[in-house]
Structures are given as C-alpha cells and as structure tokens.
C-alpha cells in the first residue's frame, strides 16, 4: 500500500496494434528507477537519462486544468524533445519554480500559461543549446552546422547523430547561454497541438494519487468537526457518547474544531460526529436576511470610486430613458469533488506535508512558521488535486493537519466530511448591486452608474500577504468584471462599498467576475431591450474600437444561431465577458414550460485566449467552466441561519448532473496575440447568457441568483 504521488506516473505510450503499454502510473518501475538514479539535470526544469527519457518538471498544481501536460509542452517544444519519451514530474518547493505573477509556487488566477509561456520555452531552448554545444565539442564541428529533432542531435554533413541522453553529462557542464533564440511560431510542432494529457491513463484506472490517497508509515487518521457558528469556539467536549465505540480514540480540542484521531478513518469520523460539544462566542443572530439588509443599507454609504468616465450622474438626469435595477448574488461553496484533506508528519526536526494544494509555496512558509523549523526541514509534496476552483489556494486544512500531527507526535491524514467541506468552506462573497442606465433619443447607451456592496477578499484574507487596498481605492476583486468592461459608454461610473461579515470569503472560479459578469451582462441586456434593439446589435457600436471583443461577439452569434427561428417556449441569450486576459462570449438556448421547468439545451461558446498551447485543454476548460457556472446559476446558494451555514451536502447544495448538461459547442479564435488565461474565463458569461435567454423565452427578468429562487426547476 505504497503511496503513489503525482510525481510517480510515467506517460502512457501508445503502441501500434491497439491498447496501451502500461508502464504507466506505477511508482517504481524499472524505467523510472533508472531514470531517477542516472539522469542528469540540465537547469532547474529538465533531467535527461542515458536511455533518452526526458523528465520535465511541471511547476503548477494539477487540478484538472491540464498544466501537467501544457507546461511541459512548452519546454519540449524548444528542447526539440521526443514527446513520446517525456516524463512529467512535480518539483519540490523551490523559488526556481515560482509562478512569476505570484512570486511563489502557487496555482491560481488562470496564470499558468501566461506566467510560464516565456520562462519554460527559454528553459527548453537553453537546454537545447547546451546539448548542441556538447555535440559540437565532441564532434569538433561548429554548433551552427547541427540540427536537433526528437531528442537527437544531427550533423548531416558527416552523417553523425547522438541522443540527448548520451550528451547530457557533457551538456550539464556547459554554462547556460545568456541569450537564446526561440522558434518562430511557424516552426512549432507541439505548441498549439491537441497533445493527449499525460495524466489520463492513471486517472481512468484509479491509479492517480490524490491527497486523500496518501498513506505513509505509522500514519493515523483524523476526522474533524468545526464549531458551526462563525467566530465561535469550543467550550467543552463530552466524550461519553463514544465510550462504547471501538477505538483507539484520541480526542483533541483545537478551539475552533474538535478532532478525533484513530487507526481507521471511519472510527475517527463516527466518533467525532457523536461527541457532545458545547460552544461559546460567535454571533448566532447572523442570517442571510440580515446580511442582505446590511448590504442594501450600504448603498447609502460613501463609496470608493472604481472607475469613472464623463458624467454619469448628470447624463442620467437628461437621458431620454433611464432604467434602474438591483441585482444580487449569494455566497457560494466550491464543493470540489475531493473533500478537503491533508497528511502531515511533524517531528522535532522535520515537517513533511502531502497536500492537494494550489499553494505549496505559501504552505512551506506556513509550515515553517507553525513548527518553528528552518525552511530546509520542511518538505511539501503536492499530490493531484480532486478539483481546486480557488478553494485549495487556502491553507486552512493543511494548517490543521500540521497542528494535529504536532499535537499527537505522529503522521496523520486529516479528511473532512462533505458536510464540513460545505459548511466550513471559505465562500465566494455575496454581492448586491444597484444600476442605472441611460439611453439617448436614438436608443444609444450614454450613461451607466453602478454601485456594488460586497465583502472584500483582500481585507478578509490578511494571511495571503497581499496588500489591502488603501482607503480611497476599491478591492479590485469586488469590482472586476464591471469597472474594467471595455464597452465605450461615454458616461460611466462604478463604485463600491465594503461590508464584511463573519462568513469567511475566498477566491472562487473567476473571483469577482463570477457575479459581476452576471450583473453587467444581464443589465446590458435590459438596456438593449429598453432601447428596443437586438442584444448583439446594441453592443456593436459600443465595441467599435474593441476588435477582438467584437469578433468574439459576432462569432458566438453565428455559432449560436443568433436570430434564427426558435421553437415555442424557447429563447436565446448572449453574454460577452473578458477576464484573465481572455474574451469569451456564450449564447444559451433555453426553454421554459408552463410549470417553469427550465432546460438549457445548448450553449455556443467562442473564446479568444490569444496564443494557446493545447486546444483540447482549452475546449475542456470552457466546457468545465460553463458547467461550473451553470450549477451556480441554477442552484448555487449558501445561506446563513443562526450564524451558521444552512446547507450540508449535495442534497441541499445540488449540482448539475449529466442529464441536465447542455450540448456545448466551443470555438477557439485563431490569432497570434499573447496567451490569455483559460481555467476561469468561461464561467462569467454563463449565468447572464442563460438569464437573458430566460427573459427572451418568458419575459421574466431574473436579477438574483440562483434561478431556483424564482420558482424555476431544472
């Protein structure tokens, strides 16, 4: 029962005649062991073994977005590596693998390709130059007479060739070139191709090692029950109810949570659920109604300006037509399929952590701080993540595992129940917004005034170390996706008022864009209707100077059959949103029957993410982001009652299933722009596209999420 971490999978090698050669996913195959013992590192990213197997480090956490494939593709392209013989490894925490925008090892903000597009190609080109240099020296020929292909160096004039594996030792002694030339894009053979993911084979066999699968010698199991009311702590624990249960049991009072440690997870879980616990503190009067009232009251407080152009206030006074509306978005849980878990082993001299974490860099820092050990005594193993969506950028669950291991002096695997995962998530912030839009006599959008009242992610999460916004500046996460919209509205103001509550908030797939995209693109649709114009036609002049946006809008309209006849009870809606450097438009087709049964039949999605690395992954991420956003739009709502989360599990925090999943068409814009993010930008347009389609089908404008609040059923 050896632990299989994500660094232990070999690539599946397709063999002619069918089937797959299964030297994959077993941690200690002969091939891997040999590669590990004899391979030569060339720089921080690449190791080459004598048999010409090339290991490439993937510096980002694999949570489904395909980075273990797409990032090594960048290295392999410039290295001229034989992709069929590439092994992907997960590196230990080291500043060499820092994500450039974060300056630490962390995965989020749809930043993997954007952050590593240049550094990883340069690493590949640099290693290639060193291998060529080694061959030139060995053959005593000028380096410019050599060419490389599929992990080989060739000197055509003398018909000589050598494998990278045979040259690696000599290449490693050559100083890396100060400057390398990167291939022109016409020469790419890997970037831009649908390369099969390296983790698929292990994942369909149940052999991929997630955090929850970690097993280390001497390990015990921990189950946890957090104090349910936010801000409350444990006053006392009565363990009488578990006296008859089969043990061993060790009951820990961690102040904000009770923990039971046992030799089997289920023994720990059953016991922790049976304990009689009394709590103290916290505000048990906090409720969703109270939060909404506070947000609405915030509308009358002095805001901070996020963006202002022209004179929205003045223009609204003279506009031919003014439309006002209030929109609302609830708190949301992430609900990753793999509940929170972490394994930690803390001794007097070392701290080793196995974590499905988006933030191994910050985790290493936290482990050092918690244990008082030097950084050299900390070892972080990043496993596969059973979903991330921002949740696993937080370190709460890992801190608990480290604390428990310290308390009991043993390696321990902490696993949260689904109920704990839902109730003690750190949530997508709730948000309330009021909008005023003004049209001139010709129905042009001439004024937009919007106030957003919401908790601040930055102020609520000082542990992240991001600087809080100064008093006269907004938390950009509160207003992103509204304040930075590219429509040419001549008089435009977005401002915000911060209201924080005891409910913990955190990044959720596409962050502020997740609710702000809904607000903005729904109200844009309202303005189009008020102007008596088609939603695409209405947007065109506003995007006249934004060629990429306009192109995405037009392509989506075409792909989504915009304007074509529809069956009775059907309607189409469109939404366009840029986030993380990528522009996405989605057209939804829905039907609503007499009993308000809502069916999303089809979504057409066009994405302009500039230069892309793996189109298959881009398509998958768009599909993924749309389903994730659709679940939230249809059902997603965390409510607060008596100071605690009212939802428990998938029965009251439901998910879209296969039967409700719409048909999705995804088209990727072909251009040579800089890469944009891919993991998140597909989410923001889905809620407004569907809401606008509901309006088209029924005349009912949905201004608060989720749709089930309005009597729709799916």
């Amino acid at each position: 029962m050896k632990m299989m971490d994500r660094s232990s999978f070999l690539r599946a090698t397709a063999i002619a005649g069918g089937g797959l050669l299964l030297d994959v996913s077993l941690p200690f195959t002969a091939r891997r062991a040999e590669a590990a013992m004899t391979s030569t590192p060339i720089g921080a990213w690449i190791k080459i073994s004598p048999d010409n197997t090339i290991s490439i480090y993937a510096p980002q956490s694999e949570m489904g977005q395909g980075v273990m494939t797409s990032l090594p593709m960048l290295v392999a392209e410039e290295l001229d590596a034989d992709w069929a013989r590439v092994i992907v490894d997960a590196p230990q925490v080291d500043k060499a693998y820092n994500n450039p925008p974060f300056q630490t090892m962390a995965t989020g903000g749809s930043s993997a390709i954007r952050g590593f597009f240049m550094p990883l190609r340069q690493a590949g080109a640099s290693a290639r130059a060193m291998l060529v240099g080694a061959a030139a020296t060995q053959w005593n020929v000028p380096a410019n007479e050599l060419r490389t292909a599929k992990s080989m160096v060739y000197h055509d004039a003398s018909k000589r060739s050598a494998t990278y594996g045979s040259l690696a030792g000599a290449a490693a002694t050559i100083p890396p070139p100060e400057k390398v030339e990167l291939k022109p894009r016409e020469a790419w053979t890997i970037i831009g191709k649908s390369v099969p993911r390296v983790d698929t084979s292990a994942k369909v066999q149940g052999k991929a090692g997630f955090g929850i699968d970690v097993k280390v010698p001497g390990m015990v199991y921990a189950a946890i029950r957090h104090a349910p009311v936010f801000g409350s702590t444990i006053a006392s624990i009565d363990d009488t109810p578990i006296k008859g249960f089969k043990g061993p049991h060790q009951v820990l009072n961690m102040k904000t949570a009770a923990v039971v440690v046992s030799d089997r997870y289920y023994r720990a879980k059953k016991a922790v659920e049976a304990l009689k616990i009394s709590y103290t503190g916290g505000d048990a009067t906090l409720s969703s109604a109270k939060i909404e009232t506070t947000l609405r009251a915030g509308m009358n407080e002095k805001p901070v300006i996020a963006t202002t152009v022209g004179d929205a206030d003045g223009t609204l006074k003279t506009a031919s037509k003014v439309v006002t509306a209030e929109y609302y978005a609830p708190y949301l849980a992430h609900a990753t399929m793999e509940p929170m878990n972490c394994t930690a082993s803390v001794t007097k001299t070392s701290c080793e952590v196995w974590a499905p974490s988006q933030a191994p860099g910050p985790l290493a820092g936290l482990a050092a701080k918690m244990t008082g050990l030097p950084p050299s005594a900390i070892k972080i193993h990043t496993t596969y993540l059973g979903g991330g969506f921002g949740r696993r950028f937080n370190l709460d669950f890992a801190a608990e595992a480290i604390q428990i291991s310290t308390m009991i002096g043993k390696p321990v695997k902490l696993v949260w129940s689904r109920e704990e995962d839902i109730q003690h998530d750190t949530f997508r912030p709730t948000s309330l917004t009021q909008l005023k839009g003004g049209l001139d006599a010709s129905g042009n959008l001439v004024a937009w005034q919007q106030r957003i009242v919401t908790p601040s992610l930055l102020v609520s999460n000082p542990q992240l170390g991001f600087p809080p916004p100064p008093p006269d500046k907004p938390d950009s996460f509160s207003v992103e996706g509204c304040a930075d919209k590219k429509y040419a509205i001549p008089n435009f103001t977005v401002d915000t008022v911060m209201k924080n509550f005891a409910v913990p908030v955190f990044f959720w797939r596409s962050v502020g864009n997740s609710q702000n995209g809904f607000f903005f693109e729904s109200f844009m649709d309202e303005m189009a209707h008020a102007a008596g114009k088609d939603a695409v036609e209405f947007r065109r002049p506003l995007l006249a100077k934004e060629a990429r946006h306009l192109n995405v809008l037009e392509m989506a309209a075409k792909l989504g059959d915009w304007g074509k006849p529809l069956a009775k009870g059907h309607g189409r809606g469109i939404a366009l949103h840029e986030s993380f450097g990528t522009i996405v438009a989605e057209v939804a087709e829905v039907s609503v029957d007499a009993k308000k049964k809502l069916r999303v039949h089809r979504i057409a999605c066009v994405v302009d993410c500039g230069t892309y690395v793996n189109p298959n992954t881009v398509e998958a991420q768009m599909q993924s982001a749309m389903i994730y956003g659709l679940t939230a739009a249809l059902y997603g709502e965390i409510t607060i009652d008596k100071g605690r989360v009212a939802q428990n599990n998938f029965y009251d925090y439901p998910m879209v299933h296969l039967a409700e999943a719409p048909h999705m068409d995804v088209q990727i814009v072909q251009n040579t722009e800089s890469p944009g993010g891919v993991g998140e930008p597909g989410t923001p347009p889905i809620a407004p596209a569907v809401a606008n389609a509901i309006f088209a089908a029924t005349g009912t404008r949905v201004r608060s999420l989720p749709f089930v609040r309005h009597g729709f059923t799916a």
Partner: protein
Amino acid sequence: MTELTVNKKKFSVDDEGDTPLLWVIRDTVGYTGTKFGCGVALCGACTVHVNGEAVRSCSVTLDQVKGKSITTIEGLPPADGHLTKIQEAWIAEEVPQCGYCQPGFIMATAALLKKHPKPTDAQIDENVTNVCRCGTYSRIRKAIHRAANA
C-alpha cells in the same frame, strides 16, 4: 473478522460491521481508486460492483456485503496491465480533468452497458447519475457511446 472478496481476492477484515464498504475498501483492503465524495450516496464517486451490480459503497455497510464479491476500478479490467473498452473510450475522448470522480463514472458505465449494451441518451441520463464538478459530462456521454460501439 468479516470475509469478503475484492477483485477476486479474499480478504478478512476486522472493521466493525457498521463500517461503510467505502472505508473498508480504501483504508483496510487498500484500493484507493474508489473515492469518497459525499458519504450519502449522491455523487457516485465511490461506485463499485457488488455481485455485479453498481453500488454506492459509502452507503452499504460491511455487514451487508459479507461474503459477497466486490469489484473496484482496479479489478474492472480482465487482467492487470489491460484496460476495458470503457477506459479506452475515456482515453480516446480525453474525458478526465481533475479525474477524482472518473473511477465512479466508469464503474457506473460498466453496469449500464451490462444492462443496455447500446444505451440511448435517455438511458445514459437515467443510469449515470454521478457528479463531476469539472463538468466533463459531454465527453462522458461521447465516451459511453464510443465504448458501446467499440
């Protein structure tokens, strides 16, 4: 001690009779391809076969499967080092993203194809009711049809 057969191997386990089969498989027997998702039989990440029928292993107890034959994702292929046509279809369609739920989907699909070798979309909808948070549903549907026609 309770006897059970997992992937054609006999095991004798000392877990309490009320222990969900899921945890017996994962922690005592040691097959970790069967995943914990919700604990209340709603997400299907823990789907295994008990005497050939798809069962959500978080919600059956050890007592209920005493002496029965259990198959997990690890025991689904006919022999070690091979893949089923379902797994091959999953690879061909590049289904998994995070991959956590996929063993459960594959086990549910194996049971579906036994019942309906050429399932309609409606039969897929009715029988494959697992949850995938990465939203791989459209590729799952394609992969099921591909496996059925392989």
